[in-house]
């Protein structure tokens, strides 16, 4: 490397420009691949982008914090995007209202299944307590999951990674589960993926239809609420029952 290139690299690696540009470029490359693969769930654009970016960070030995200084501008938009979910929700309101009772029961069943099965499987296979408490809230949107994990004694930043992984897994697997169970109703499909896989599942549901997306957005919001309110007192009780 000539001194000039060296200096350019020093400048770029310290500025937010590189992290931001890399994130946008990686996502567009990933989305191009996703489209080329005929929107196959395994070519999930979040998964592909994260793989590319993690590869670049590891190869160039760039600290995550340096990358995030730039990528935070994209991360920040999660806030207004969450608020924007009110619009599809409003569009589907008459249908949502007509299904209120069943939705609440499915919400409680799905929310408890997500948290308790994650804890149970992890515990049976010998995960550490920190990992288990980071796993329990992984089906809800990142900021809620991180806050809940912290209260339970997990690691918030590990939870963020588990939350994203859960989202990707749900976005990849839901289609196969629905085909196997013969579930065609877009309201049911959207609601279930929103419960299990929060925003990434919601993004996937919007690709199916606006109705599926709105039900997913509602499920994500409600599951965030239920999980935030219930897990901090359910998990200590589960641990005591399991003798841990």
């Amino acid at each position, binding site marked *: 490397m000539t001194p000039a290139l060296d200096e350019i690299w020093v400048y770029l690696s310290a500025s937010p420009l590189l992290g931001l540009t890399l994130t946008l470029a990686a996502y567009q490359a990933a989305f191009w691949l996703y489209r080329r693969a005929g929107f196959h769930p395994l070519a999930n654009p979040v998964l592909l982008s994260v793989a590319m970016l993690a590869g670049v960070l590891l190869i160039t030995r760039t600290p995550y914090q340096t990358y995030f200084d730039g990528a935070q501008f994209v991360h920040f938009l999660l806030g207004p995007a969450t*608020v924007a979910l009110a619009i599809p929700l409003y569009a589907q309101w008459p249908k949502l209202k007509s299904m209120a009772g069943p939705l609440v029961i499915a919400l409680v069943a799905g929310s408890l299944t997500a948290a308790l099965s994650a804890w149970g499987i992890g515990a049976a296979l010998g995960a550490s307590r920190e990992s288990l408490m980071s796993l329990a809230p992984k089906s809800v949107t990142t900021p809620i999951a991180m806050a809940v994990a912290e209260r339970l004694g997990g690691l918030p930043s590990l939870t963020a990674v588990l939350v994203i992984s859960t989202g990707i897994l749900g976005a990849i697997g839901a289609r196969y589960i629905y085909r196997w169970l013969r579930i065609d109703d877009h309201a049911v499909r959207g609601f279930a993926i929103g419960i299990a896989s929060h925003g990434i599942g919601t993004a996937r549901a919007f690709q199916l239809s606006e109705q599926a997306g709105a039900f997913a957005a509602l499920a994500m919001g409600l599951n965030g609420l239920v999980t935030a309110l219930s897990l901090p007192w359910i998990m200590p009780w589960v641990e005591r029952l399991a003798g841990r």
Partner: protein
Amino acid sequence: MLAALTLLLVFQLLGEVIARALALPVPGPVIGMALLFVTLLLRGGPSEDLRQTAGTLLQHLSLLFVPAGTGIVLYGDRIAAEWLPLTVALVGSTALAIIVTALVLRALTRRQTTTGGPRQ
């Protein structure tokens, strides 16, 4: 576009203020979403501008999770040590949550259709 973006940020800000003032466990943007939703119900729907801006943001929703997901590089050691329980727990619980939610909702909405007469 600019007006709609400002509106979304104002609702997020309101949500953050309420969440902190009342020490709620729910994040500000989720409260902001609820507030905007209630506003839309009261006012009878979003403006064309708001609808388009929201559509653009939500169209690229997946992109917004990429920076947090890349945080996986921080956990190489823990993932190497606990990859089996973590992977099985994530795959198993995600599948179970989808299955349970979908089956419960389908069972309940079917019964509603058969006992409550035809629904539109």
